[in-house]
């Protein structure tokens, strides 16, 4: 393989050498003809050697070229001409000096050139290190860190790279591969594991697991191994020392960033937990307060009815029973909201996605609401075409019911509520319009907040827990949709939300 690659190079260099020698010889012959001093011919040949060694690079070439010029000089210019014989033994010294000077100067040229290359390489190395460091410092999140490290190392070596990060309990959290997946074989997995457990490099080019495809290096921090980097060069090559050194320089950087990200994530987590804890406390307080209102009514009416059974008239008893039923129903709604919210918070609500006709969901929601209220006129506008959506029908129905109940609670009796369904691009819109008092500008930004209760005005009869709209928002967002509220003209509220039509979600 190696020879094959170099062959055209050798031929090329030989041709260049022949050309240079030819030019030197012709020039020298002309000089000789016009009787210019013989020593100049030596200089011209030496110049040729210098020139050639500058182009060709390689000590063997310069040695060969030096021998060649000596022979050429001897052949063309030393008596007897056109033979390799030498009459005057003095010339032997000339030859020797000529050879030594040619060789040494060409070697020096080569060395200068090589050193220049070395400086250039180092500069590139440092700048690429600097660049990678800068990229690593700017990543957001552990996942991006894995991606960036794999990308950069792969770019640097033009190799397939594996980056694995483990958490403190040794569970693999991120695995990123840049290039081809060549790390799957049993041996490679074992080597990777060994690297993680021992904290020292393994794999190709080392003594352990040398039959694997890749070289594995640990990502170390003071508290142990955080991850493993695997590098698999093309052409079955092992990593050079410089390349290994590069990984050794880069992996502590990765470890530092990784630790930083871990700490950040932990902080965020704690912050969220504190917030959730506070919310839960708030919720308990609100719940117990809000549940007490209907309960007080139920208890009061039941005990009054029971204690004074013979003293009160049948119509009063009937009224009591009816009110008890209504209060219990209200209580049930509140409990339902709490239950769904807690389920949602714990992430226990699983979307039960199915293909549903959007109009069926609306109709189901409207008929459900109508069962409890006859004092409002609910109008439904649906398009002629049948719109199918991939949603959890029960939850979306709940969203519409919650919005409708809000509309009913906040607008006067006999008002008209319009529910519309329409399609715009790939979004399916559900819209509920009422002509109640509307929502003031100050309140608009808060209405999706949990436990937010609007200032109750004289129209409203029952107070909810302020869970309804925040729950709606969570459900719609779980469907990759959005929900928004704005004011209706001349007064009233419009609540609108969309989910993606089935073509998109599929």
């Amino acid at each position, binding site marked *: 393989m190696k020879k094959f690659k170099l062959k055209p190079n050798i031929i090329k260099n030989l041709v260049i050498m022949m050309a240079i020698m030819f030019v030197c010889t012709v020039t020298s012959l002309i000089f000789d003809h016009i009787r210019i001093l013989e020593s100049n011919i030596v200089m011209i040949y030496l110049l040729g050697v210098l020139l050639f060694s500058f182009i060709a690079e390689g000590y063997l070439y310069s040695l060969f070229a030096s021998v060649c010029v000596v022979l050429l000089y001897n052949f063309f210019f030393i008596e007897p001409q056109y033979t390799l014989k030498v009459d005057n033994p003095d010339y032997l010294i000339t030859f020797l000096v000529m050879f030594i000077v040619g060789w040494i100067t060409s070697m020096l040229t080569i060395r200068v050139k090589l050193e220049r290359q070395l400086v250039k390489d180092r500069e590139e190395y440092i700048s690429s290190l600097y660049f990678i460091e800068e990229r690593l410092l700017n990543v957001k999140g552990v996942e991006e860190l894995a991606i960036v490290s794999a990308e950069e190392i792969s770019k640097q070596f033009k190799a397939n790279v594996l980056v694995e990060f483990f958490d403190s309990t040794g569970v693999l959290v991120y695995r990123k591969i840049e290039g081809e997946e060549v790390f799957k074989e049993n041996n490679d997995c074992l080597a990777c594991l060994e690297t993680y457990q021992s904290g020292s490099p393994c794999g190709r080019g080392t003594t352990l697991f040398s039959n694997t495809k890749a070289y594995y290096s640990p990502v170390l921090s003071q508290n142990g191994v955080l991850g493993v980097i695997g590098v698999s060069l093309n052409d079955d090559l092992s990593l050079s020392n410089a390349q290994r050194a590069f990984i050794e320089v880069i992996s502590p950087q990765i470890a530092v960033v990784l630790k930083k990200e871990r700490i950040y994530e932990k902080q965020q987590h704690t912050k969220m937990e504190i917030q959730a804890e506070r919310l839960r406390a708030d919720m308990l307080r609100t719940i117990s307060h809000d549940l007490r209102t209907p309960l007080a009514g139920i208890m009061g009416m039941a005990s009054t009815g029971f204690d004074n059974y013979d003293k009160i008239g049948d119509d009063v008893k009937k009224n009591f029973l009816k009110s008890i039923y209504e209060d219990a129903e209200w209580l049930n709604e509140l409990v339902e909201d709490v239950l769904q919210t807690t389920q949602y918070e714990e992430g226990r609500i699983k979307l039960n996605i199915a293909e549903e006709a959007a109009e*069926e969901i609306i109709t189901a929601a409207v008929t459900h609401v*109508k069962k409890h209220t006859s004092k409002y006129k609910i109008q439904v506008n649906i398009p002629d075409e049948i719109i199918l959506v991939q949603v959890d029908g029960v939850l979306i129905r709940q969203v519409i019911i919650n919005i409708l109940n809000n509309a009913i609670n906040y607008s006067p009796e006999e008002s008209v509520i319009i529910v519309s369904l329409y399609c715009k691009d790939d979004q399916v819109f559900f819209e509920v319009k009422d002509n109640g008092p509307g929502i003031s500008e100050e309140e608009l930004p808060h209405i999706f907040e949990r436990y937010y209760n609007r200032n109750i005005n004289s129209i409203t009869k029952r107070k909810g827990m302020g869970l309804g709209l925040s729950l709606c928002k969570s459900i719609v967002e779980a469907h990759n949709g959005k929900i928004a509220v704005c004011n209706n003209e001349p007064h009233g509220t419009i609540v609108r939300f969309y989910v993606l039509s089935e073509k998109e979600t599929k």
Partner: protein
Amino acid sequence: MKPLILIVDDETSIRSFLQVSIETQGYKCIDAANGANALMLATSHNPDILILDLGLPDMDGLDVIKRLRKISQMPIIVISARGHDREKVEALDAGADDYLTKPFSVTELLARLRVILRHKSNGNISSEAETFTYKVKDLIIDTDKRRVWNHNEEIRLTPNEYKVLVLLAKNQGKVLTHRYITENIWGGIVAEDTQSLRVCMGNLRRKIGEDPSQPKYIITEIGVGYRLIDE
């Protein structure tokens, strides 16, 4: 003879108010608090209707249905807790006739009981006879001539729409699961069939002039199925 209703629920308060409200309708009542008792009473008394709560202390309500279905075709109304939608559909697919979600209104339950009892007294002629004329409000389905009228105006249905409508009419008042309908009309349950069913129902609703804010004929039970209104 008074119809006999068997109530199965592990909560005493629910059993007692159900019993009172059912007896006010002139039906007779027996009750059981667990699955084993329920099976025993169902086989020994052969009630006209079984009201079954799915959350029983000793066994899964679904098993009660499956075991009963092996020996009897008695109508079963299932009562399930809110949020257990899958359980509900499973019960219907296992052979339950109807369902109610807790907390339910007693009026609703009594209405369902009446529907079932009326179908029972009509005998099973309607579901077995090849041809029959159904009349629901202003909708008339003549299976002999394979024609459908709404407000004395004939409406044109595709073969599948017609088949779905007849299937619903044959089981008037009873909720039919998506699975049941697709199996009966399309003969299988493939993903495309749910889509076909939704589109078919949508077209059917438009043709019989349903008001989307207040359906007169076809009730959609989201996540469960469809029902043709009875009363």
